[in-house]
């Protein structure tokens, strides 16, 4: 199944490059060579052993390497953003950055650049060149290599030194096509020293065809900078969503990554955060609500390369029907990373006998003066609590809902945008009630 993409690349690499930008093309052939060597990941690989992605690769997808415009007006389709959340709003349709029309986006502070990666590569080649591929090019990973070969564009955000964004940035990814379709994109986010930014990425599907997205996001967070990365997925069950988030933190920076999967088909989130300076603060968290045949595999790596950093990790899953979940929490503490504080928790509730959860804490500690902990549980709702609530007149289903909402509460509390936190709380409740059992466009707007 790799062969068709290898052939495609060999026949059309000139076209691919022509519709991309020089900076992005520089490492393209190398990435392709690596993909030829690695192929798509299989369950024989340790890092991919829980979820078989092959069926998703077998599908025959269309690609848009000539980058023709898709007939869609996202401003029509998505009339509102999260109510109460005042954001800088951007759309990416498949892999194409949608021309900016939003008046309020002109209020971005001076020096901040938000545009397509292609545009950034052409207008600010030195800046893009300095960062593009720095984290991804060294990855021995089939998906990242495939992305390096085929991604032609993506989202670009640059927040210069000492600048604080007054509002969160919201990026809405929409998959839109009349035929089974694949999109590869590469996002690049640079938050310079002492800058502050929050990004909310929403993944949505528009049409009832098979979609395949393979996105790589590189984030560079400078000294004393603060960055929030929220990813909210609400896609339909014919979506394969492969997302690799690579973050590099400099000293005394503070980041949150929170991946929330409300509804999906097959999702793989690979999140790697490298703590490359002292006194970094890192929160990596996420939640999954799965039912039917949904599959979510969150693979996380927190790399304590420097001493005196603090990381927390919290992932929670509620799985019903025949849904499948997987979690890997790799925690690496380098030999000299003394005084590391690193805590990891993964808790899961299975509502049905046929739901499956696999979880693996993976701690690799080479320093000797650290505090690290991990805990993973898989269980059911607490029968005693259920009876207690029923004995107060709360019906079984309501009691279950209250417990499930309560179970997810601490992950939601990790959201540092008040309006978004309230909104997600509401969406989670709706989802658990079964009111969002089908994704129709943007849940944000319902």
């Amino acid at each position, binding site marked *: 199944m790799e062969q068709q993409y290898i052939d495609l690349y060999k026949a059309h690499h000139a076209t691919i490059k022509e519709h991309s930008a020089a900076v992005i093309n520089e490492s393209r052939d190398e990435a392709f060579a690596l993909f030829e060597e690695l192929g798509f990941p299989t369950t024989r690989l340790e890092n991919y052993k829980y979820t078989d992605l092959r069926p998703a690769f077998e599908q025959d997808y269309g690609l848009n390497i000539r980058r023709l415009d898709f007939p869609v007006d996202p401003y029509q389709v998505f009339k509102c953003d999260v109510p109460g959340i005042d954001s800088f709003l951007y759309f990416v349709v498949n892999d194409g950055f949608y021309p900016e029309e939003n008046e309020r986006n002109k209020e971005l502070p001076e020096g901040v650049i938000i545009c397509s990666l292609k545009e950034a590569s052409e207008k600010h080649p030195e800046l893009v060149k300095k960062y593009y591929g720095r984290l991804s090019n060294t990855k021995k990973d089939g998906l990242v290599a495939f992305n390096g070969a085929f991604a032609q564009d993506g989202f670009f955000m640059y927040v210069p030194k000492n600048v604080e964004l007054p509002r969160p940035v919201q990026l809405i990814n929409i998959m839109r096509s009349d035929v089974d379709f694949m999109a590869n994109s590469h996002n690049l986010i640079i938050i310079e020293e002492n800058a502050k930014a929050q990004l909310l990425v929403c993944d949505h599907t528009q049409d009832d065809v098979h979609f395949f997205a393979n996105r790589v996001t590189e984030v560079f967070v400078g000294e004393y900078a603060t960055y929030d990365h929220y990813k909210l997925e609400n896609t339909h069950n014919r979506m394969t969503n492969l997302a690799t988030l690579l973050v590099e933190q400099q000293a005394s920076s503070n980041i949150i990554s929170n991946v929330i999967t409300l509804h999906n088909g097959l999702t793989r989130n690979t999140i790697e955060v490298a703590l490359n300076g002292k006194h970094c603060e890192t929160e990596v968290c996420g939640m999954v609500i799965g039912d039917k045949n949904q599959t979510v595999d969150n693979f996380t790596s927190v790399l304590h390369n420097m001493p005196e950093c603090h990381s927390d990790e919290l992932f929670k899953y509620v799985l019903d029907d025949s849904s499948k979940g997987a979690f890997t929490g790799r925690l690496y503490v380098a030999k000299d990373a003394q005084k590391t504080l690193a805590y990891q928790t993964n808790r899961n509730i299975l509502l049905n006998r046929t739901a499956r959860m696999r979880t693996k804490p993976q701690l690799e500690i080479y320093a000797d003066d650290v505090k690290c902990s991990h805990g993973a549980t898989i269980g059911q709702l607490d029968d005693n609590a259920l*009876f*207690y609530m*029923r004995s*107060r007149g709360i019906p079984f289903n309501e009691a279950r809902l209250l*417990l499930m909402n309560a179970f997810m509460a601490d992950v939601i509390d990790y959201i540092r945008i008040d309006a978004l936190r309230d909104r997600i709380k509401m969406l989670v409740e709706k989802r658990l009630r079964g009111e969002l059992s089908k994704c129709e466009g943007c849940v944000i707007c319902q």
Partner: protein
Amino acid sequence: MLVIKNLHASINGKEILKGINLTVNPGEIHAIMGPNGSGKSTLSSVITGNPFFEVTQGSIEFNGKDLLELAPEERANEGVFLSFQYPVEIPGVSMVNFMRAAINEKRKYLNEPAISASDFLRLMREKKELVEMDSKLTNRAVNEGFSGGEKKKNEIFQMAMLEPKLAILDETDSGLDIDALRIVANGVNKLKTPDNATIVITHYQRLLDYITPDFVHVLYDGNIVKSGTKELALELEARGYDWIKQEVEA
């Protein structure tokens, strides 16, 4: 109000209740005493519909309704309340949300509109004062991190909020110091009306110094073996349970 006839119940196939008969009328306070393992807590669990217990024989009628046919939540909304011996901690569910859900479910059951936010807050405040409960506790998750005494107070607070027709206090005195005991008992007494009834399940006579029962029953080996007035409780306190055992076995 409550009529229990020939009630048999078991857990995991082991019979615990072996033919209980008990009638409770409005306005009455009944105390049920007995040694450990006699079936006191099983009785309260069965009346409230705990699914871990199986009723194998007999009937429970509550205001003319067959209680055994009703789900636990329906029994609660009919006006049955249990103050748990071991109140359950529910992390993440706030007391406020919990109480609002309970009150509104009851109103829904009785075809009444949901309570307004201001009425609800006023009710919370009133009832908190009644049991001298710290406001900090009602701002927390249900029972989470509460001390033993706070948990018991919280049970009586919930009882005050829900105004049941029949309240069953299962070992509410256990783990309480003398001040907490007085507060809890005062709360129960203040909630007493000629229309509601209370069943006090207890080990010791101590609580009965504060809550005066109209009837005292002794439960032993799954049966009520002796009934009397409050003097029986005093006698039990003085003589222990052994003489009852001997009487039964004789």
